[in-house]
Structure formats: C-alpha cells, structure tokens
C-alpha cells in the first residue's frame, strides 16, 4: 500500500511542476499567442495528472469509488473544455486583428 502513496505524491508533484511552467510562460512570453500556448497546454495536463493522483490515493486508502469517479469525470471535462476555450478565444483575438510576435529585424 505504501507504493500507491508514493505514486500519488509523484503525480501531484508532476502536476505542480506543469502548473509552475505554465505560470512562468504566462509571465515571460512576449505576445498573446505564445502566452496562450503556455497556459492552454500546461494547465490542462497539470489538472489531469493531479486529479488522477488524488483519485488514486482516495480510491485505495478510503475506498470511496463514487467520489473518485466524480473526480475523473471532472478531469475529463477540464481535458475537453480547456483546449476548446483556448481555441475560441485565440480565434476571437485573430479575427480582432492581434498581430503575432515576430523578431524585430524581420519586420
């Protein structure tokens, strides 16, 4: 049973790592599209991995199957909804005329 705990902790820590990289990308990247690329992919994967780790610990130590299934349903919903929202707002920005970032000497 101890191995399940270690696997769960590792999953949650990997999720924290992807959250941190997404946040650094949101702060550091130069224009709107690259910021959206960082948060849209990093946060989606981080939510999926973190909720899978938490549900794994919960289903083995507390035996609550229904709550774990609900957690997995939330993870799958975020996995479908977050890229959709990213695509929608990116298309809106493109149609509003936000220019992608290029290097200065190429202009």
């Amino acid at each position, binding site marked *: 049973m101890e191995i399940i705990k270690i696997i769960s902790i590792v999953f*949650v820590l990997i999720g924290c790592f992807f959250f941190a990289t997404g946040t650094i990308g949101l702060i550091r990247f130069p224009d709107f599209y690259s910021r959206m690329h960082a948060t849209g992919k990093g946060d989606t994967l981080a939510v999926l991995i973190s909720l899978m780790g938490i549900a794994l610990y919960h289903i083995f130590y507390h035996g609550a199957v229904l709550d774990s299934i609900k957690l997995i349903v939330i993870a799958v919903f975020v996995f479908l909804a977050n890229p*959709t929202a990213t695509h*929608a*707002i990116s298309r809106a920005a493109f149609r509003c005329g936000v220019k992608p970032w290029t290097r200065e000497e190429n202009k």
Partner: protein
Amino acid sequence: MESFYLGVSIFLCSLVLICLYRVVFGPTIIDRIVSVGAIGTKTLIVLVLMGFIYKRIEMFLDIIMVYAFLNFIGTLAAAKYFEGRGEI
C-alpha cells in the same frame, strides 16, 4: 498526507499571486481574460485539496464541478463577445 496537501495548496496559491501580475498589468484585455482562466484552473485543484483537508470531499465535489463549468462558460462568453464586436 494532509500536510502534503496543505503544502501543495500554499504553492498553488503563490502561483495564483504570480498570475495576478498579468491580470493587473496585461497589455490587452484578452490577456486578462486568459489569466483569469488560468487562476480558475489553479483554484480547482486548491478546492479539491481543501475538500480532502477538511474531510468533506463529497460536499466539495459539486462545488468543484460547478466551478469548472462556470470557468469554461465565462471564457467562452468573452470570446464570443469579442468576436462579435470585431475589435479589442
């Protein structure tokens, strides 16, 4: 395990504070909307961990589900509004 969850929650709250920089000083309004969406995604995980710390996860799960729906619908509504308006 509760102390580990508490440490992860504090780490995610510090990431939310970093994201607030982009909300306050964002160059365009779409940057602010994306940052609020990212903050909502981190709040989702913090709510799950709070549910386990307080041992009331069956109550928190419905709140988490509604929060995920509202985060998605809010971003989508903002996207449709700006697409219809045609300018930032």
